[in-house]
């Protein structure tokens, strides 16, 4: 008696960074997947990347069958510049065949026979069928193409061969045959103003969970890199155990006194203030204090290159070089030009999850906003990041530039502040006695008593210092304070204004 247990579903890792995360481990063995995308969307690079990975890492055998009149010499020639391309795998481990003539002369039946026989002869464990649109063109009816796909699925399934079908979908949206396959992946290039953004979207994936939504991707010299959306990756749910009581100090005595020791470990703090108010330097002080205490910290920068940042810090007597050299103070920098929000998300998660970072300073929020092509995403992205940090006890600081440097209005550039930060420190410059004076105040510090006064923030070559409260002025928050001892605004030079 031949008895057996049903086969355990094996996963075929794809070799495309990020895709296995989206697919919870890769393709399912012996299943049929369809990859849909208009010309130029990256289907061929995608499919070949999977092929080379399959041959190299899994020791698999690949059959790449094209239905289009394209020459394989040209195809291979185009791939040769990519780092994953390895000519030694051709033609044994990876075989390119053209089914163009067979399809043209014998139709779908002849194609099905060719696929069956060649898959068996090559003992292929991965089959790519490139250009389904050509088969659709010769199919006498929609029914015939459905039958062909179904037959192909059964045959390759019996042979244990994972199948990837590439199609443009003829730009007609979802068709019947697209619903039959075990998984449907869409590659898209979308325009946002003058920006083009590439996105992958898994429409269906039978028998397994997968990450929903649109994930950005890049096409690089190494092939395709997918950046799963941070919101779909980040930890959700309440933090394990009671909230952390430990405080993270800034290493600036006056500041730490205002915060009764610092900000809570695992909390998120916004440094809000106009350009030049001292946000970056305050954040760097916070990181340096962590590094001095032996924590690993990370500066995630958009505006200042590491060299400039080190020089800037040195200017106020903050010597970061030894901390950086020691490896406790990590710095990463990306210019605030065309960043992909999802790519930043993957980098941030890597810092939080794999690098063992305890303090993270993201400088600043505006670059995140520019990276997001959909503005509505930014607060969700931040909320996910904040939650991830909270769950892992990582203390996050990020700088937010306020719109106006002076004037009575203070607007938060984001909604739902409670969702994206527990604490808010407000930094501002004010004109007082014909001098620009910086001050800092705690707008919000969750679950902790704090000093509510406005205190002067002095930045000198000796460092940052938070000194006493302003006692003789009011309306500091407006940036144009009035003296409380003299009822009228002070005149330039500090003299009394004429009535």
């Amino acid at each position, binding site marked *: *008696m*031949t*008895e*057996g*247990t*049903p*086969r355990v579903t094996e996963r075929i890792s794809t070799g495309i960074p990020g895709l296995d995360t989206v697919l919870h481990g890769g393709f399912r063995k012996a299943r049929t997947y369809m990859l849909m995308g208009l010309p130029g969307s990256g289907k061929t690079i995608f499919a070949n990347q999977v092929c080379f990975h399959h041959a190299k890492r899994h020791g698999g055998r690949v059959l790449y069958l094209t239905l289009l009149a394209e020459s394989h010499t040209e195809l291979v020639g185009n791939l040769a510049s990519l780092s994953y391309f390895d000519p030694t795998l051709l033609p044994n481990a990876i075989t390119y065949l053209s089914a163009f003539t067979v399809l043209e002369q014998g139709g779908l039946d002849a194609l*099905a*026979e060719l696929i*069956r*026989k060649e898959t*068996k002869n090559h003992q292929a464990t991965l089959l790519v069928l490139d250009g389904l649109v050509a088969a659709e063109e010769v199919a006498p009816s929609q029914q015939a193409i459905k*039958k062909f796909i*179904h*037959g192909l*699925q*059964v*045959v390759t*399934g*019996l*042979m*244990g061969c994972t199948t990837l079908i590439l199609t443009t979908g003829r730009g007609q949206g979802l068709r019947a045959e697209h619903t039959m396959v075990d998984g449907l992946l869409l590659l898209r290039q979308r325009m946002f103003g003058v920006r083009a953004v590439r996105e992958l979207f898994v429409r269906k994936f039978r028998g397994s969970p997968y990450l929903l939504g649109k994930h950005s991707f890049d096409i690089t010299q190494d092939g395709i890199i997918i950046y799963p959306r941070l919101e779909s990756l980040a930890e959700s749910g309440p933090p394990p155990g009671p909230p952390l009581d430990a405080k993270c100090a800034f290493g600036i005595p006056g500041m730490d006194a205002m915060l009764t020791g610092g900000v809570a470990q695992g909390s998120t703090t916004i440094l809000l203030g106009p350009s030049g108010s001292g946000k970056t330097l305050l954040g760097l002080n916070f990181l340096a204090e962590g590094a001095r205490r032996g924590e690993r910290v990370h500066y995630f920068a958009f505006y200042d290159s590491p060299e400039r940042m080190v020089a800037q810090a040195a200017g106020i007597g903050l010597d970061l070089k030894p901390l950086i050299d020691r490896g406790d103070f990590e710095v990463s920098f990306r210019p605030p030009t065309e960043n992909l929000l999802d790519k930043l998300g993957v980098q941030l998660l890597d810092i939080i999850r794999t690098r063992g970072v305890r303090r993270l300073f993201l400088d600043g929020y505006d670059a995140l906003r520019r990276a997001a092509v959909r503005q509505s995403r930014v607060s969700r992205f931040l909320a996910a990041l904040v939650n991830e940090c909270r769950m892992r006890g990582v203390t996050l600081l990020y700088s937010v530039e306020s719109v106006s440097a002076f004037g009575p209005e203070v607007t938060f550039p984001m909604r739902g502040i409670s969702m994206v930060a527990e604490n808010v420190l407000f930094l501002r410059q004010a004109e007082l006695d014909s001098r620009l004076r910086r001050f800092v105040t705690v707008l919000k510090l969750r679950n902790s008593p704090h000093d509510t006064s406005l205190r002067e923030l002095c930045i000198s070559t000796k460092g940052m210092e938070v000194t006493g409260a302003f006692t003789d002025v009011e309306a500091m928050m407006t940036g144009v304070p009035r003296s409380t001892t003299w009822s009228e605004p002070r005149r330039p030079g500090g003299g009394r204004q004429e009535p």
Partner: protein
Amino acid sequence: MGPILIVDDEFGIVEAMRDLLSDEGYRTAIALNGKEALERMAEERPCLVLLDYMMPVMNGPALLEAMERNPLLRDIPVVMMSASPPDYWKHLRCAAFLPKPFSLDGLLVVVRRFAQGAILQ
């Protein structure tokens, strides 16, 4: 030597098995349910029956019973194919069981065993 009779209500599976076995040099016949299978067997006695369990009109166990009652069909080896748990069908008097989903190699092993046996008889 008679053909291998493939009995399954799923046309895609019947066709795929037919084509794959033909590629291997086997002669095949197909039926989409038990009743059709009896008709095929009346036309030509198969050397092996590959039988699905769940089918409309007449299911696998019913066909097996009908074959056992018929002295002309009683000794034809039957391989039961099913995706249901073995508890449902392990009591049946079959030559072998092929749990679904099976692989081509698994199918060929069974077929070689019984189709070969049929030649030797």
